[in-house]
């Protein structure tokens, strides 16, 4: 078993590769921090995991251990094997420059779309081609009249979600830099990542 550990700096992004059979753990190091997560296949076709297609397979906004995250062709890409939080979002698009400029009048703010695109440039033609994200640890409760409540994560320091990787992927994670509205407890913190590869068979 070999293990790789990375830390995503608060408000920044990180891109990494995982292989079929790996175990991918994403950790909310200090708690109350959303981690936008996207993945693209490394089979040359560049298929993307899709919250919309996953929602249809699960007929639910939410996912739980045993469920898979699917790509746009309805193929399972990752299986959730452990989740110490149980609350994630697969609904809100990545914050981008316009989230800050249009909604809050702030120019030049760090944002998830640019964080995700930074490492995915070799795979994508423009930032607008970045897949829709799964927002791990983000909390978007449904109100009785179908509205989205804008609120902070329930995650505590060290909370984690663990995936079995089902196909070779390039993944990107952004520690969401949103520090204006509820979403990260008004304080942006790092995200830790651990990738465990199974021991190679000795031939």
């Amino acid at each position, binding site marked *: 078993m070999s293990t790789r550990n990375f830390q995503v700096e608060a408000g920044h992004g990180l891109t990494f590769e995982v292989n079929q059979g790996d175990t991918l753990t994403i950790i909310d190091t200090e708690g109350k921090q959303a981690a936008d997560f996207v993945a693209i296949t490394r089979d040359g076709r560049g298929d993307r995991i899709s919250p*919309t297609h996953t929602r249809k397979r699960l007929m639910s906004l939410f996912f739980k251990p045993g469920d898979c995250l699917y790509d746009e062709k309805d193929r399972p890409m990752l299986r959730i094997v452990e989740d110490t939080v149980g609350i994630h979002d697969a609904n809100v698009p990545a914050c981008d420059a316009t989230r800050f400029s*249009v909604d809050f009048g702030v120019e030049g703010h760090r944002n998830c779309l640019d964080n995700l695109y930074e490492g995915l440039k070799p795979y994508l033609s423009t930032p607008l081609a970045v897949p829709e994200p799964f927002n791990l640890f983000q909390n978007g409760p449904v109100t009785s009249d179908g509205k989205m409540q804008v609120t902070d994560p329930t995650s505590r320091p060290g909370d984690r979600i663990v995936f079995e990787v089902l196909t070779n992927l390039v993944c990107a994670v952004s520690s969401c830099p949103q520090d204006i509205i509820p979403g990260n407890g008004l304080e942006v913190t790092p995200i830790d990542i651990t990738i465990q590869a199974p021991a190679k068979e000795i031939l």
Partner: protein
Amino acid sequence: MLLMNDTVAPERTRLPKQHVTVLANEARAIQVRRGQLLRIEAGSPGVVASLFGFTEDPSVHLSVHHTRVFSNSYVLGKGMRLVTNRRRPLMVLGQDSVGHHDLLLPASPQVLDALKACAAEVGLSPDKWPDPINLFMNVELDQRGGLHPQPPRTQAGDHVTSRVLIDTTFIVCACPTDVEHHDQVGTLELTVAEDLSEF
């Protein structure tokens, strides 16, 4: 008096009414200019209109995901702005005789194929195919996040009408959606006009 059409008047002349029929299992495009009204009408009971819209720069498109977060709503209601993936209002749901639409589910393979064929016909090749706005689709959402398709209540003649705020090429698909209760196919009627009196 300065109304929407007076404000766009210096930019373009008043345009004649347009009408396009989308046949069952097909998709059709219709161009709508800023200030015009777009009406999408069901030709038979239970049909779904899978709606896509591309601006002059096709990487900027109608975005169901940004539309949800723009109004902090999982469901589409009258008066809501439907926005682009750059968070600019593209159209407003101004009239709605149905009251149930879906903002959460993806295009079926049939919808995606029809979208791609229609886009190619009108010379559109976006970097990423957007997810649809599923007009007339009836899916209940419970507070635990569960999605429950219900029989659609749409009848022939039911329609939605929207004021369009950005020049847009819309593509509307009348295909099976692969969602329970929503595989009835039929025609859809698309009409574009400057004023409600023209419908």
